């Protein structure tokens, strides 16, 4: 039977996986931008989630981060990184596949004649 390593060793061996998962779960720039562009659904209220800090209630939309309480979140709003993000979000739409296609020298996509009149 193999030895079971101690807690520190197991954490070190597993931490790269958690880091990778955390990276994947973070929202990309265009997803965050889309959040700002939809006023009609009017921003659903944040659901209670035990795992997140502060029950998932205190959320910064620009940076996609959760905070423990209002004061921490407000402190975050003053940071340089956050203000930079806000400035970026005010700017133009982030790069999409359509932008890449147009940059490659293609025209607008051709979806053919409308099949069903809604």
């Amino acid at each position, binding site marked *: 039977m193999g030895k079971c390593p101690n807690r520190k060793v197991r954490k070190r061996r597993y931490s790269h996986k958690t880091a990778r998962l955390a*990276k*994947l*779960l973070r929202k*990309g*720039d*265009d*997803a965050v931008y889309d959040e700002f562009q939809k006023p009609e659904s009017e921003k659903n209220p944040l659901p209670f989630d035990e795992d997140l800090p502060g029950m998932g209630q205190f959320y910064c939309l620009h940076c996609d981060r959760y905070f423990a309480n209002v004061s921490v979140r407000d402190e975050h709003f003053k940071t340089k990184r956050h203000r930079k993000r806000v400035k970026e979000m005010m700017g133009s739409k*982030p*790069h999409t*596949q359509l*932008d*890449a*296609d*147009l*940059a*490659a*020298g*293609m*025209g*607008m*996509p*051709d*979806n*053919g*004649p409308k099949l069903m009149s809604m």
Partner: protein
Amino acid sequence: MRLEKCWFCSSTVYPGHGIQFVRNDAKVFRFCRSKCHKNFKMKRNPRKVKWTKAYRRLNGKDMTQDSTFEFERKRNRPERYDRNLAENTLKAIKKIDKIRVAREERHHSQRMSGKRSKEMKEAAVELEQGIHMVKAPSVLAEDQSLTLPKIQVRVSQPQTEKNQPMEE
């Protein structure tokens, strides 16, 4: 089979190349090679990375609007196979490609047009300022042929006659 464009650099991704990444919101990101994939993971903005097509078009390095761009599009409705149409399309692709390359060449040469005169001007200024690196100033003063045509010192006769009595 479709030839896709890379999300990051906008180059063509041929079958068997690159990586496709599907995000949680079902958006597909296609990359032509690991360079683009790694840049994406670093969250770099293609519009700011100098070698991508997005940057080049945005900053006027490459031609932006042209009628030849209308021909190549992403067509989401399948065409019924027609042999004549296929033959004509293949011929047209070759022709349009040639025209597009010629126009891009013209755009590039127009962009580079002022370069030769600018280089010559800079070279003339540098020569004037740095002539001491080519030959020592004392040599230049003695041998008039080595100096630039602008700097011409005429040796006047009356001066030498004056010097003779002094030397004695």
